[in-house]
């Protein structure tokens, strides 16, 4: 007779355990060798960017990837794990950016001002997310999406109009605490050939906060709470029939996701030393987030890392690659025009369409499917 399986005390114990790494990843392992390799490669390159590449563009690209990992993972928690389609995610991203910007610009360039700005932004996001959730998560998904779109648009207009506080269309430029300024030199000598300055300190602040936030979200989706969210996503009536209050769980998911997006916005503002409507509140960013979630793989979390890395790299370097290609094909008719750098958005769109066709479950879904096959 087959032995009765051990009784699961909780969902955490309902998964196989496997040491420190499994604990760190909440036992939600990549489950594909190729995927593990890609993830390790991305994280390693991000961790070593200041030592691997010279110049400011690679560091800025890596910083942007770190920010978008948090932002995309938080949206995956909402869309992929909870089945909630919200267009207000950039609003929370913007609130985080404005929190830091207003704090540092109005209260002075120190850590206390940054902390006040961040806490105020987190509180604002939480209140707004609760209000939107309780008022609109009862309605049908399409109406909820429309409501979030309207609220996000209103917030973008508000940010542009309240120029006394937000800087209006121009946004706010501000000084960082001294430890994050380029002039800051923690070491007198270069470390592994690189002179460490405040920019690199700021980069590592972003990197470690982003990794910490990602692991925290991975923990959340693999917790009992995360399993209830997945159950609700699959069939809310079944979840209700088991005694789970769907609106409460969805609202909680919205709040967690909003808080993570707020932190991402704060990180971007810290990196750019600037925040404005176009950098955090624009609808184009919302579209980018959606693309990154879909390309990486919805409901996988790891898709956020791959989607953000791929998309930001394409955004940053596709034009450069196309320019090189265009020059190389100069003698051939039509082709140089086709891959002219000005047409990079067209090719990015084509890449997106191809990736959706080729990997309907995203890259992570595809790699995991390959492993099963």
């Amino acid at each position: 007779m087959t032995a009765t399986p051990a009784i699961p005390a909780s969902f955490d114990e309902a998964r196989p355990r496997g040491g420190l790494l499994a604990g760190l990843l909440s036992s939600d392992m990549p489950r594909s060798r190729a995927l593990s390799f890609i993830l390790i490669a991305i994280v390693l390159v991000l961790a070593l960017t200041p030592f691997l590449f010279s110049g400011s563009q690679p560091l800025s690209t890596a910083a942007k990837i770190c920010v978008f990992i948090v932002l995309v993972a938080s949206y995956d928690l909402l869309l992929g794990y909870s089945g909630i389609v919200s267009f207000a995610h950039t609003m929370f991203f913007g609130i985080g950016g404005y929190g830091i910007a207003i704090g540092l610009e109005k209260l002075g360039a120190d850590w206390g001002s940054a902390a006040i700005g961040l806490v105020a932004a987190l509180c604002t996001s939480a209140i707004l997310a609760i209000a939107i959730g309780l008022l609109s998560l009862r309605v049908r998904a399409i109406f909820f999406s429309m409501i979030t779109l309207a609220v996000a648009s209103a917030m973008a207009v508000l940010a542009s109009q309240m120029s006394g506080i937000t800087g209006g269309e121009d946004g706010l430029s501000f000084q960082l605490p001294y430890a994050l300024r380029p002039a800051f030199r923690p070491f007198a000598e270069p470390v592994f050939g690189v002179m460490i300055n405040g920019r690199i300190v700021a980069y590592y602040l972003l990197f470690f906060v982003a990794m910490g936030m990602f692991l925290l979200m991975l923990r959340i989706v693999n917790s009992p709470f995360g399993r209830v969210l997945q159950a609700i996503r699959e069939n809310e009536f079944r979840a209700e029939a088991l005694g789970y209050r769907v609106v409460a769980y969805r609202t909680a998911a919205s709040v967690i996701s909003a808080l993570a997006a707020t932190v991402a916005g704060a990180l971007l503002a810290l990196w750019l030393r600037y925040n404005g409507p176009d950098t955090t509140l624009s609808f184009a960013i919302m579209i980018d987030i959606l693309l990154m979630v879909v390309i990486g793989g919805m409901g996988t979390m790891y898709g956020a890392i791959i989607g953000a890395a791929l998309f930001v790299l394409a955004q940053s370097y596709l034009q450069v690659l196309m320019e090189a290609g265009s020059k190389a094909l100069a003698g051939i008719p039509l082709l140089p025009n086709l891959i002219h750098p000005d047409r990079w958005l067209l090719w990015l769109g084509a890449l997106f369409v191809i990736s959706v066709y080729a990997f309907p479950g995203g890259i992570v879904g595809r790699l995991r499917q390959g492993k099963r096959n």
Partner: protein
Amino acid sequence: MSEPLLRLQDVHTHIGPYHILHGVTCDIPAGQLTMLLGRNGAGKTTTLRTIMGLWRASSGSIRFDGRDITRCSTPSVAQGGIAYVPESMAIFTDLTVRENIVLAARSGPVDSARLDWMLGLFPALKRFWNLPAGNLSGGQKQMLAIARAIAEPRRLLLVDEPTKGLAPVMVRSMIEAFRALKEAGETILLVEQNFYAASALGDNVLVMDDGRIVHSGAMSDLVADQALQQRLLGLSLDAHQ
């Protein structure tokens, strides 16, 4: 006669413009298995869904263990001790069998003796314990749906057509499982189209037609009275054995 665990009094339910339940009145006694029979569209599923609060009764009252639950939300009804197994094998296919069971145990870890008993009723679930529930066959999904409903002690199980679309061997397994649940003292309201299964299991029977209870009594009386079967259900037990 003991006080009924569940009492429906003149319950009317509208779904959009349609008047589905036309004054359902019935009692479900504790510790017994009550069959709810009737042709398609008679209102059996609507009755279960109205009890669960998934569709709100437009008038009448539903009392569970002396408490009025007519206006209660579905989670409140479930938290009050009523488990519902819909006819659509309502499991969560993306979660593993284990996660489905743990999800249903809202009050804490599943008691080990209960888990042994549950897996004794549905041994096939052991084999797929850590696999996605979506991989199960139709019969196994139905077993999981019922196992999930009994993952923790409930006062009343509402089960909608558990044998629908199952192979005969699965139907027999299901009958055995419900017999064991009955012996364990569970109170069950079971909707069933298969009269053979119904007659093998039921202590009591309710027959619905056109949104009303048209017959209520002991199952053995209905089984013994072929004329009554013909009149209420248009069939006889002999024809279905």
